[in-house]
């Protein structure tokens, strides 16, 4: 989605560029400041230490897993919220967004009281032989909890913008609901779905508060990159800065890759 002033007949008022530039600086300057603190001579050894590699791998695996869970649950959720009308749906829509505004540590506490050993579902899970506490599954749960609203908002917005006209036409031509969903709806909202999935992945990658509260912190099992950064800060600030930069680079790569791979603008 490229916007240049040339495309619009009116153009932007000049004054808008000043706060826009300040906003850009506000985001970029801290990243630059952090990069200046990196000890480049030892950068490679810092980001390839055993604990750093374990944390990065775990972060990528759990973020990918939670993105998949977000898609499996979030796509149907978005469809229901965008296309269905029933009493209480507005309330439901607001509730789904709650993790977006909740401090992650509160999310972690809530998850603990749901899936923890003494939680609402804890005993049932224990009877079933499922132990979530202190496992990698707990990390995925925490990440999914905070990332799901990103996918749902993004996709629901795309569904509303696309409208139901083409779906109605397809249905009137005899296509069954699943066919309409597969051949009409999802291709129409593909960019929204993709950006929603990327946002969820990025949010999962940065998840910290819910994870440390709910999942614990053990190398290779639950200690993701943000937790490793926070821990390294205690003893080795250089390693913490190096890993922070690594996390930024990974996030930027993920976002850039999807922007590149996006289908033509005509779909938006």
């Amino acid at each position, binding site marked *: 989605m490229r916007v240049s002033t040339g495309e619009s007949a009116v153009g932007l008022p000049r004054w808008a560029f000043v706060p826009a530039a300040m906003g850009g600086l506000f985001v970029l300057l801290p990243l630059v400041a952090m990069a200046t603190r990196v000890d480049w001579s030892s950068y490679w050894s810092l980001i390839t230490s055993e604990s750093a590699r374990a944390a990065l791998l775990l972060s990528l695996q759990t973020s990918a897993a939670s993105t998949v869970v977000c898609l499996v649950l979030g796509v149907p959720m978005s469809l229901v919220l965008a296309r269905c009308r029933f009493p209480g749906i507005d309330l439901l829509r607001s509730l789904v967004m709650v993790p977006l505004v909740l401090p992650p540590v509160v999310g972690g506490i809530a998850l603990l009281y749901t899936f923890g050993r003494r939680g609402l579902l804890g005993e049932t899970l224990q009877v079933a032989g499922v132990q979530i506490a202190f496992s990698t599954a707990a990390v995925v749960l925490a990440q999914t909890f905070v990332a799901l609203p990103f996918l749902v908002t993004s996709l629901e917005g795309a569904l509303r913008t696309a409208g139901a006209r083409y779906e109605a036409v397809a249905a009137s031509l005899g296509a069954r609901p699943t066919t309409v969903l597969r051949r009409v709806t999802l291709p129409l909202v593909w960019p929204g779905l993709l950006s929603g999935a990327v946002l969820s992945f990025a949010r999962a990658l940065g998840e910290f508060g819910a994870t440390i509260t709910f*999942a614990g912190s053990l190398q290779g099992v639950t200690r993701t990159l943000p937790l490793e950064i926070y821990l390294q800060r205690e003893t080795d600030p250089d390693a913490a800065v190096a890993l922070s930069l690594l996390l930024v680079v990974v996030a930027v790569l993920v976002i850039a890759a999807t922007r590149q791979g996006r289908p033509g603008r005509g779909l938006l």
Partner: protein
Amino acid sequence: MRKHIAAAGVAALAVTALAGCGTSASGDDGEDTGTTLTVFAAASLKGSFEDLAEQFEASHGGVDVRLSFAGSSDLVAQIQQGAPADVFASADTANMDKLVADDLVAAPQDFATNTLEIAVPPGNPAGVHTLADLADPDLALVLCAPEVPCGAASAKVEEAAGLDLQPVSEEQSVTDVLGKVTAGEADAGLVYVTDVAAAGDDVEGVELPESAGAVNTYPIAPVADATQADLAQEFVDLVLSDDGQQTLAGFGFAGP
């Protein structure tokens, strides 16, 4: 940690409110009104230093003690970056030494010690009675990470006993360990004696004779460029006085 920041905020508000009442009630005691003394203290000192701050305000009319609680290494980083602290109380000597090396404090004095204890959920469901019980592979044991002071102390105790503990989680702070135990997620955790005391009925403590080999010493010092140098020294004196030591003992701390 968010929790610490929030706690510090609430504490600061509470202290401010108390100070406000105190000032209006006692009136002018001869000193300048509106003087603020900023004390940075390790998170484990929260209860005891809130008490000490009240005592200090009671004996110093018009002085407002502002407390900021966080992990010692966080506080050190803040002071190194120029945060306006008058007094710093650390949970270990290693963090205080960082400020001494930077000439940011002079002549720290030890004011308390703390030792480890096993914390278990009420009723001790896993039946933990000795350090050796913690080595049971089926036990959900939570420790501090070796990078933080309580984890270093745990590692020392573990090594001295010749045990190989397999924790399910190595937490960032002693508060996080305690949280996992009070929530019932963990069967046992190694925390400080003072944490068990502060947690009340939420956890039970199992005494750990082996912890005598890993005593944590708490040093305190006025910060070098304190804006309230005299008051800072008086606060340090209060902490080291008999009254101060008695207050600390009430929260489970042992003498230096």
